[in-house]
Structure formats: structure tokens, C-alpha cells
């Protein structure tokens, strides 16, 4: 897969080691050190210390106390973890199957394909903060579009963002709207490059559409499906912009995370605890836990993918 030929070793005139790659990559490594390694190390270090604003280096080591405090004392923490997991699962479980079905229909259709690709992908490119504002209006209980449409169908008004039980799911629908196009586009392009012979062979053998979709296309698409669900899940687990904007504007009339604390996610808890209350220790502890969560998710998916790759090679 990799091109193993190389300028540095093949070139007969260059007996000495070519330093060009190091020359190029070293400055980039400085960037990685400052913007990847340092933040990660800082987050872990801080999560184990009692942060003193005036003199950070004198912050006493407290071990896992920040984590214990979070679990035992902060009522927002269990809510945030629960919401993060619900949100990640809800978004992924809608986006991937629905995106797959839409991609399949798009693949079968013959007309207006470019137009649909354009329309589906457009939301994905939009700023979530702005999208959140628009949808706050659509979900406004009294005069929002959502209740108007429900009203036409004879369904009584819903509270949406003002209902503590519903609010996180409501924000989730907006995330779904935002991410759907990405899934459709990638799955669609995966289908285009499928070995069409296999599909045709199954059809000649008398398989119907549903059998072809489930027994032939789905197994062949496993790698792409895993990729799409991994990316969607990672994004959803980290959600911040939508929650911040939608739960503080016309939704609850209060601060982000409302009504009450019902829509706190882990990203929002990091923000509130760290940058509003300046408790950097506990905030970092939340961020480390979020990192572990995201990492576990990615790792599981990658492991699954690798097995699949080997199968194909």
C-alpha cells in the first residue's frame, strides 16, 4: 500500500543521509508539542492537583480527589455523563441507518443526483452555533415551526427545549440534521465503488431488492459503515456549540445547560467548571474522562476496522 521507493535511499548520487524530511518535519513537531502534547499533559496533571490561580506550580497534588469530588458532590456530573452517552448513541443510531438508506436510494436513482448531493451536504458545512439559533426558533413552543407542523397533524404542542425531559433529545435532532449529509455522501461514494458484478449475479439468481441490500451490499459496506459511525459518534460525544446556544437562548431563558441542569454535557461541564468557576482541577478531570470515552470509542471501532481490512487484503 505504501510506496516503499524513496528518494533518500534510491538515489545513487546521494550516499549521505538526506536531511530534508527532518528539516521539514521538525518545525511541525514543535507545533504538535505545544498544541497536542502540552494540552494533553496539562489536562492530566491539572486533574490531579488542586489548582491555585496565583501560583499554579505550587498547586498541591491531590491524587484522584478531583474525580471523587465530581462523582460524589457535583449533581451535574452524572447528568452530563448520561446526556453525553444518550446524545452520542441517539445521533449515531439515527444518522448511520437513515444515511445508509438514503445513500442506497440515491445510488439506485438516476436523475438529479448532483442536486441531491449538494442539498444533503450543505448543512454539514454550516456553523453549528448559527444552526442552533435557527432551530431554537423552529422549536419555540408558542410560534415555532415544529409545533405548527405538529398542529396541522392534530398533535398537541410540545415543550421541546423548555421541557427538561425533552431538551437534550431536541438538540440531538439538530445534530442529526447537521451530520446526515456527511454519512450519506461517504456511504454513497462507497456504494459507487462496489463490485457491481456481485449485485448483478445475485439478481440473476433471483434475489429481491431487500435481500440484495441486506445480504450483499451491507456486508460489503462494513468498513465504510464503521468509519462513518466512528466519526459521527466522536463528533456527537464532544458536542458543545449546539448545546451552548440552544439551551441558553430562546429555549430556557437561562444559562447554558438549562432548563435547570438538564442538558449539561461533558463538554459544557468542562466550560462551566473551568472557565466560569475557575475550578481547573475538576474541569480537567471531566475533560480527561471525556477523552477516555472518545478514545475508547475510536479504539473499538478501529480494532473492528483493522480486522476488516485484513480480510480484504
Amino acid at each position: 500500500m505504501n510506496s516503499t521507493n524513496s528518494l533518500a535511499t534510491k538515489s545513487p548520487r546521494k550516499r549521505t543521509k538526506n536531511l530534508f524530511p527532518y528539516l521539514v518535519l521538525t518545525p511541525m513537531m514543535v507545533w504538535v508539542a505545544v498544541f497536542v502534547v502540552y494540552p494533553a499533559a496539562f489536562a492530566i496533571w491539572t486533574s490531579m492537583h488542586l489548582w491555585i490561580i496565583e501560583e499554579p506550580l505550587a498547586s498541591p497534588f491531590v491524587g484522584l480527589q478531583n474525580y471523587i469530588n465530581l462523582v460524589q458532590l457535583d449533581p451535574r456530573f452524572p447528568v452530563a455523563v448520561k446526556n453525553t452517552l444518550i446524545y452520542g448513541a441517539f445521533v449515531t443510531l439515527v444518522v448511520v441507518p437513515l444515511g445508509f438508506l438514503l445513500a442506497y436510494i440515491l445510488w439506485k436513482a438516476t436523475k438529479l443526483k448532483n442536486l441531491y448531493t449538494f442539498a444533503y451536504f450543505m448543512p454539514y458545512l454550516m456553523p453549528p452555533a448559527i444552526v442552533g439559533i435557527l432551530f431554537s426558533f423552529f422549536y419555540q413552543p408558542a410560534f415555532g415551526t415544529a409545533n405548527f407542523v405538529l398542529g396541522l397533524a392534530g398533535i398537541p404542542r410540545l415543550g421541546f427545549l423548555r421541557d427538561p425531559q425533552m431538551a437534550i433529545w431536541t438538540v440531538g435532532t439538530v445534530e442529526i440534521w447537521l451530520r446526515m449529509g456527511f454519512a450519506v455522501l461517504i456511504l454513497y461514494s462507497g456504494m459507487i465503488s462496489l463490485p457491481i458484478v456481485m449485485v448483478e449475479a445475485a439478481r440473476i439468481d433471483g434475489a429481491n431488492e431487500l435481500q440484495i441490500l441486506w445480504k450483499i451490499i451491507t456486508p460489503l459496506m462494513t468498513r465504510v459503515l464503521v468509519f462513518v459511525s466512528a466519526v459521527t459518534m466522536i463528533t456527537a460525544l464532544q458536542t458543545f456549540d449546539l448545546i451552548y446556544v440552544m439551551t441558553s437562548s430562546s429555549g430556557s431563558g437561562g444559562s447554558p445547560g438549562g432548563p435547570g441542569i438538564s442538558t449539561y454535557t461533558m463538554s459544557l461541564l468542562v466550560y462551566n467548571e473551568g472557565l466560569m468557576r475557575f475550578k481547573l482541577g475538576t474541569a480537567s478531570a471531566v475533560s480527561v474522562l471525556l477523552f477516555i470515552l472518545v478514545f475508547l470509542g475510536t479504539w473499538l471501532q478501529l480494532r473492528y476496522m483493522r480486522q476488516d481490512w485484513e480480510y480484504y487484503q
Partner: protein
Amino acid sequence: MNQSTKRNGFNWRELFLQLPLLFFALLALFPFIWMVLSSFKTTQEIVHIPPTFLPEKFTLRGYAEILDKLPITRNFLNSLIISASATLIAMFVASLAGFVLAKYEFRGRNFFFYALLSQMMIPIAVMIIPLYVLFTQLKLQDTYIALILPFAISGFGVFLMRQFMAGIPDEMLEAARMDGATDWTIYRKIALPQVSSPLSGVAVFTFLTLWNQFYWPLVIVSKPEMRTLTQAVAMNAVQIGQRYDVLVAGATISVIPIIIVFVIAMRQVVESVTFFGGK
């Protein structure tokens, strides 16, 4: 692929496929259409039940008010400067790193590759506090540097570029070397032109990532005139609550540039996204 019979000259199967596609396309586009149309309405008309589609009384009050209230030209320029600078850095880094990682063999190659990819692994919530502390201690809050640098390298871009650079025939590069070309010349004059299409995909994505950003500007920017366009419009909307005409006008202003970029560069965007699905 199309094995349906065309009796009576009408394709029922195609219609059956078109209906759900059309429904979801309308669902995807409706908020934009609503937004643009509503930006020419008064608040009373926007909240009116039943809703109107086209503006009954065409007005520009929403736009006038937001231009009056926010330093929106400045916010727009901020977004442009920040997104464009980060994009240039990201293009340069991704193509150069992709080139050496694909075409040179050297000790630590995988290490460098994974180090650059690690950028994708770290959730932004993990970076936010350490970077806030760092930039505050350096007294660099409310500066372009703080807004540009942390997101100026894209692991995804490096990955994409490495894959495309690997596809360039080695003979081509060897021939240039025989003619006495330096490494830099080979990169600049031979390799770079071969990957211009995926590279513009990287450019569009970096540009949009920076343009759409909210979390990091929210943390590091406090002066209204240093806010990005997205941030300024979003924060204003959170504060004004019920003035929907102003809110929608602001949203339209911040989204129009993205639509323009997408219309111009749709092919490159789609190409670099579908790269993952089509392999």
C-alpha cells in the same frame, strides 16, 4: 443498473425513488430558505401564526439593526483573516508533510506520521483549558495568533495528502533529481501540481472549520471587535432573545459566505470527502 421497464413512457420506479430523496432534500434546505426569506420580514411577521412564506412587507430593518449594533464588518474581516491564514498554513504543512511522509524513507517516519495524526484524536474540550491558561499567561488573549495557531494544522489534511502523494510515480521524481533538482524544487514544481485538487479540498475544510468555530473564540476572545463573525452573531442572538428579525439577518450574513464557497468548490469538497468511502 436501471432494469425497470418503461411502459407508457413513464418510469414509476424512478418516481418512487425520487419522492424520499426530494423530501429529505427539502428538509435539508428548508432552514436556509426560511432563514433568507425571514431576514426580510418584521419580527411580528416571523412569529405570526400561521407562518407566511414570502415576506408580506419587505423590510431591511433586521440587517440595518445588526449592522448598527455589532462591529459586523470588523467581525467579518476577523473571520476572513483567521480562516485564510490558517488555511494557508494547513495547505503548506499538509502538502509538505504528506510529500516527505509518502516519498522518503527515513528513521522515525511512522512516528512523525502518527504525531501529526494525533491532532485529530484530542477532543477540543481537553485542549480548551490548557490553551486558555497558555495564551493568558502569554498575554495573547484577543489576538489573531491565539485564534489561528491552535487549529492551523490538520491531521486529516496530512493523512489525505500523504495518500495522494503516494500515488505520484517515483520515476517522475527520480527524473527530476537526475536533472539536479533540489528536494524543495521537486516538491514545489513536480509533486504539488499533481495534488492540487485534493489540496483545495483540504483548503475548503480548514477554512470552514475556522470560520464555523465557536468554542475556542468564546473562551479566548472577550473584546467585541475581536470576535469572529460566527461568534458575534451567535452571542448577539443569545442575548437579544425575542428580536427574531435581527437574529435571522445575522444568521444570513454569517452563512452566505459558506454557501458561496461551497457552490464554487463543491467538486473538490465532495472529492475529498468521498475519498474515504470510495477506497
